[in-house]
Each structure stands twice: as structure tokens, then as C-alpha cells.
């Protein structure tokens, strides 16, 4: 950008532009003067009108072709540019994805999803009865073992107390 600015300010460029402007001004003045001449003026005006009509016709005919050409060139150009660029990296570099995500209307997205059907699908994938059965079984077995062990221990404690009260040896059954 900086070099372009420098180029535009270059004295040579300024001089060339000035010269061109002067030439255009002179041509315009000459045309106006020639237009006012008695015989030459109408002749020239007529030929200029003919010329512009032909120009209009040509533009009308070839405009569509030209448009198509320009479009094809533009599409090819954009494709080329896109091929050269890594869009993902570009997006990652230039976009604040977090900010976009923060602005997302998630409520609307959720409203569009059939949550019940989704949940059904998830539950279908999980074998819940087996899990419940397994955990219940192991829990019951643990509780039962615990109750029995505690009971046995309590029996032994009672037997020990009675044995001591009666003055019996503990290893007599």
C-alpha cells in the first residue's frame, strides 16, 4: 500500500496525468469549435450520431457475451484463490469463534431437535435393565453377607459373655 501511495505522488506520474488532462481539454475545445462551423459542423454531428448508434448496437449485442466471459474469469479466479488459501486456518486466525459461539441462540437449536427421540435413542443404546440387575444383585449379596457375618459375630460375643459369667473355658463348645 505504501509503495502505491508513493507511486501516485511521483512527479513523473503527476506530469503525465496533467498532460493527459490538458490533451482531453484541448480535444474537447476543438470539438466544440468544429461543431460550430457552418458546413462541417452538421456533417460531423451526423457522423458522430451514427458512430454512437453503432457503438450502442455493438454494446447491446456483445454485452451478454462479455458478461459471461467476465463471470467465467471471475469464478476461475476466485477458485484459484480459494485453492491457494487454507480456509480453515484463515477462519481460525481471523474469526473469534468463541464470540460467535457465545452469540449462538442455542435455545432455538434445542427447540428444533426432537429431544425425546434423541433420549430414546440413547437409552436404547444403553442396556439399563442389565446394569440395574447387576448392581442390585451385587448390593443384595453384599448386604446379606454383611448381615450374616455380623450375626455370627454377635453370636460369638453373647456366647463369650455367657461363658465368662458361668466361668466356663471358652474353647469348650
Amino acid at each position, binding site marked *: 500500500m505504501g509503495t502505491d501511495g508513493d507511486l501516485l505522488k511521483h512527479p513523473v506520474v503527476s506530469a503525465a496525468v496533467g498532460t493527459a488532462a490538458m490533451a482531453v481539454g484541448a480535444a474537447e475545445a476543438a470539438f466544440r469549435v468544429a461543431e460550430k462551423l457552418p458546413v462541417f459542423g452538421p456533417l460531423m454531428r451526423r457522423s458522430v450520431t451514427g458512430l454512437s448508434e453503432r457503438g450502442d448496437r455493438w454494446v447491446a449485442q456483445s454485452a451478454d457475451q462479455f458478461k459471461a466471459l467476465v463471470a467465467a474469469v471471475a469464478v476461475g479466479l476466485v477458485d484459484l484463490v480459494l485453492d491457494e488459501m487454507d480456509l480453515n486456518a484463515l477462519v481460525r486466525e481471523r474469526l473469534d469463534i468463541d464470540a460467535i459461539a457465545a452469540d449462538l441462540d442455542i435455545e432455538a437449536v434445542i427447540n428444533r431437535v426432537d429431544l425425546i427421540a434423541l433420549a430414546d435413542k440413547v437409552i436404547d443404546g444403553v442396556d439399563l435393565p442389565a446394569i440395574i440387575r447387576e448392581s442390585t444383585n451385587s448390593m443384595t449379596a453384599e448386604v446379606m453377607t454383611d448381615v450374616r457375618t455380623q450375626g455370627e459375630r454377635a*453370636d*460369638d460375643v*453373647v456366647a463369650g459373655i455367657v461363658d465368662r459369667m458361668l466361668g466356663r473355658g471358652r474353647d469348650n463348645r
Partner: protein
Amino acid sequence: MISSESVPDAERAAGIITRGLAAVIDLAVVLLIMGALYGGLVLVRLVYSPAAFSLPSLNTVFSTLVTFVVAVVYLTGCWTVSGSTAGAVTMGLRVVGRRSQRVRLPVGLLRASACIVFPIGLLWVVLDRERRSLQDIVFRTRVVYSRPAAE
């Protein structure tokens, strides 16, 4: 504790706590059965005479007799078939004969009757060196801990 470690292979006789708890559970089971029977009776009466329906007030002697029969059948059945009533299963106990692993039917019947008529006999477990109740002494049975590994 020491006795159990000195004779690890023998079936240890169960003490008063486990047997008492098992008896309480069995009592609850019998009461449940009685409740179910009463409910069934009420429903039957309702079906046959819905107009003149009133809750049946049962004869005390009759109720006692039915309870006794239910309890005897329940205990005998459990002891002779598996050796364990519901309470015994919960507490990990098993009733075995002196020599055999199962109680024979007549012995079971008599033992069940004796246990119901004279439940205090269970307390002898505390005093007896071999942890026998009075019924165990009379009918030559034992109540042992049933271990899953031994089965």
C-alpha cells in the same frame, strides 16, 4: 471365636442372636401368610354375599388353630425340603439332623410344633455348650451356619 478357629472344617452351631432374628423373620412370614388368608376370606365372602357383607370376626380358637397349622406346615416344609426357612436363609442358617443333612418329616413336624408351643426353649441356646435349644436336645437336631463354600 477361638472355637471357630480351632475347628474350621466343622459346621459351627449358630448362636442366639442369629437364631432369634431368624425366628422373628419367620414369625413375620407366618403373620403375612395369615394376613393373606384373611384377605382371601374377606374377598370370597364379598364375592358370594356382596349385599350382606361385613368384615368377618373370627373365632379366637379357630384363628389360633389356623395360625398353628400354618406355622407348622411352613416350618416343617422349609426344614425338610431345604433345611432353611426364610428367616434362616436371611441369617445364613440351616437346620440339620444329628447325622443327616436333612430333617426327616416326622421330626420336622414335632420340632415345629414344639417350637411354636414352647418358643422360650430357644433361650437354652445361650446356656448350652453346644448351642442347642431345648427342641434341638429333644429331637436331636442342630442349627448350623450355612456357608456358600460348603454347599
